[in-house]
């Protein structure tokens, strides 16, 4: 429930559940996905994918590539107003200011890599922004739509130091108040450039982690929408006549296991760890029972598939080298082919305060134990998990969540980075690592869409064969809403939660 709600049901207040609380409201700095869910409707970017996953200009109006493809000139929308009390029109300099901020190492944004291919950016007048590339850019719109490319009010940033507790942008909602662990209050931006948007006067985001609680709350009508529908419990909500659940295939969601193939001793990796052997990794892949993951981890609302992108996705490939249901016998055979004897001991780390990770980890543990492995599952808090993850002190770990819909955006996964500080974990000798990195590093901007597809299809197949990046299933994105919430249509990527379209039946 909320604080500050005036209580009369003037039916223009929306209460929305969030699956977890936030750390920060600074969209350029925050690590958690939920921050994006909330802030994306307060602070906008130049582009954003629509529900068809087509890129749509938001703060931009259009763009023109220079002939050599080395630069782009982006026309900005005019009449875009920052929120009060920093009300003024947004101009190209403001975008430059934001780009400077994110790319500046001193800011400490985890989104710096967005700028890896951007050489320079400057305003050409109030409504034109010019960007020079290092290399021609294949996925320009997607890059500009990426997390961290938000345009915050420079005035507000100057005044407050950062946006972590008070984000000021140009979006349909104005940030009003945040009481940690309690609620985030947004109100309609009256001067928003689109008429009739947003559809409600106020939104309260309430973090409710406990699924049972969230379900009760929406059934009681205490809240109108669940952002994070536990897929497991979706059936229960669907049974309720007052509630509808929207599902959509998510291009960016996957339940996956990372398998540590590295033999890099600098990272404290013991020599001769079993997962350095491709046989063992493949045995692991054979041990995974995808339908059980679909049922248990996603309550049936997921698709099987072994490659990074689901089959129906633009980048999807039809490639399933391992049995979809577990094949313990095959796994045993693979183990026998390796230098290891069953049961093979594996160290799995997982996070105890992330429901999905726990489920993935525990399921995988049981399935592996049935197929000739002995998995020591260590659950820890996310904070420790991240630390362990980065220290590579594990053989296998569940991971989940979303990332960019375009594989060319080199934010694929931390484990593929190859700069000085970040040694890739994936460079095991008996693997396709070399070719994978080659593709990863390859500049695809010159290529046609079909050629790019082929390239990344190969990439996915190689990755799949190597069994370093095991897809358990592709969960769907789902939201639940009371039936009197109208005009809301689910977005395939849950961080673009189109709450500004929702309105309440009078």
């Amino acid at each position: 429930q909320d604080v500050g709600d005036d209580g009369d049901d003037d039916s223009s207040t929306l209460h929305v559940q969030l699956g977890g609380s936030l750390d920060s409201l600074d969209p350029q700095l925050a690590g958690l996905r939920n921050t994006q869910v909330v802030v994306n409707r307060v602070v906008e970017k130049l582009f954003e994918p629509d529900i068809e996953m087509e890129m749509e200009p938001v703060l931009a109006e259009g763009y023109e590539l220079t002939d050599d493809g080395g630069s782009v000139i982006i026309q900005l929308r005019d009449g875009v107003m920052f929120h009060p009390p920093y009300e003024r029109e947004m101009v190209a300099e403001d975008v430059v200011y934001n780009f400077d901020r994110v790319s500046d190492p001193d800011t400490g944004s985890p989104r710096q890599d967005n700028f890896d291919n951007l050489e320079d950016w400057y305003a050409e007048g109030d409504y034109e922004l010019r960007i020079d590339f290092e290399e021609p850019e294949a996925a320009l719109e997607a890059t500009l739509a990426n997390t961290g490319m938000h345009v915050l009010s420079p005035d507000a940033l100057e005044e407050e130091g950062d946006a972590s507790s008070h984000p000021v942008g140009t979006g349909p909602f104005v940030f009003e108040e945040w009481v940690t662990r309690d609620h985030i209050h947004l109100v309609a931006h009256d001067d928003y450039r689109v008429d009739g948007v947003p559809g409600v006067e106020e939104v309260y985001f309430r973090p409710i982690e406990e699924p049972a609680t969230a379900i009760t709350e929406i059934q009681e009508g205490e809240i109108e929408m669940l952002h994070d529908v536990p897929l497991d419990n979706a059936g229960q909500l669907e049974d309720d006549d007052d509630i509808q659940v929207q599902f959509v295939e998510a291009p960016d969601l996957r339940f996956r296991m990372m398998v540590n193939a590295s033999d890099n001793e600098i990272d404290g990796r013991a020599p001769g760890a079993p997962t350095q052997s491709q046989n063992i990794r493949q045995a692991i892949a054979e041990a995974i029972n995808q339908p059980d993951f679909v049922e248990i981890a996603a309550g049936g609302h997921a698709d099987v598939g072994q490659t990074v992108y689901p089959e129906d996705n633009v980048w999807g490939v039809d490639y399933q080298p391992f049995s979809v249901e577990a094949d313990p016998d095959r796994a045993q055979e693979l183990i026998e082919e390796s230098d290891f004897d069953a049961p093979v001991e594996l160290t799995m780390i997982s996070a105890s305060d992330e429901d999905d990770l726990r489920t993935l980890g525990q399921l995988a543990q049981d399935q592996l134990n049935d197929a000739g492995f002995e998995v020591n599952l260590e659950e820890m808090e996310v904070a420790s998990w991240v630390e362990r993850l980065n220290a590579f002190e594990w053989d296998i770990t569940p991971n989940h969540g979303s990332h960019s819909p375009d594989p060319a955006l080199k934010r694929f996964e931390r484990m593929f980075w190859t700069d000085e500080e970040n040694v890739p974990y994936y460079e095991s000798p008996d693997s396709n690592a070399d070719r994978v990195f080659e593709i990863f590093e390859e500049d695809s901007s010159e290529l046609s869409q079909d050629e790019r597809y082929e390239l990344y299809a190969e990439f996915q197949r190689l990755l799949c064969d190597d069994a370093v990046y095991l897809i358990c299933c592709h969960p769907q994105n789902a939201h639940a809403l009371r039936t009197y919430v109208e005009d809301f249509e689910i977005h395939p990527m849950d961080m673009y939660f189109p709450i500004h379209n929702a309105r309440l039946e009078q």
Partner: protein
Amino acid sequence: MISFVHTYFHNFLEEHTRYRRIYARFRRNTLAMFGLYFTIIYVIVAIVAPLIMPYDPGSTDGARRLLAPSLEHPFGTDRYGRDVFSRVLYGTRISLRVAALVVTIATVTGVVTGLVAGYYRSWVDEAISRTVDVFFAFPNILLGLIVVAILGPGLNQIILALGIAFAPIMTRITRGSAISVREEEYVLAAKSYGEHSFNIMFREMLPNMVSAVMVQATIIFAFSILAEAGLSYLGLSAQPPTPTWGVMISEGQRNLQTAPWISLFPGIAIMSTVLGLTFLGVGLRDALDPKTDVDADTTGGI
């Protein structure tokens, strides 16, 4: 089984009048006897759990998830398709292990520090007591939480954490008891014939503090089961696939409306175990209480 234990216990106590009197007092207390029987059953279940579990407590099955209690699955199944009954049985073992080790750690630490503080008094006492005061400012569950945050989650860490968390109360109880026992003249007597301090503490004083320590240990035993469950509820205890009751309750909470049995049975298991232990503890205290233990034959001439 029970009657065997009963007889054995009885014979053992028969040997000594003091114990016989304690046992007689204990036996008249129905609740205490209930607690004793319950605890015995609990310990037996913990020991033989692997033999009587119908299923592997960690075995998942997508096709059998969230089944209501039936003959096949007396307590139903959870969302992983695991058999709740087997898990509850196995959980007994875990909670017994945790509780037994926590009690050991807390008792050994608490008794040694409490005895040293109560015996030496002066600055030693001051240092120990103030440290205990400081620890007392943090509720048990918080101490556990912090220690687990430091050591990382896991059964052994929980055991250590709770051992640390419960030691101060044991220190306090022991110290209090040591201070009063120290005033007894036999302590002075031992000193007067040159007994070593260590022997005075552990051979003269400690045996006379056994009942206070034992009663407190039973209480800690019960409380550590509760505390472990609480910390597992927060996801900080044993690592999967080890089932602990607290983890089961917290896991079941997400399916509470549709499959309440997942949380309910482990909850009942905790409750009845702790209840049994509490009755046992209270019964013990009443039976051992020196105030009711008046020696009737100490009056009269020579």
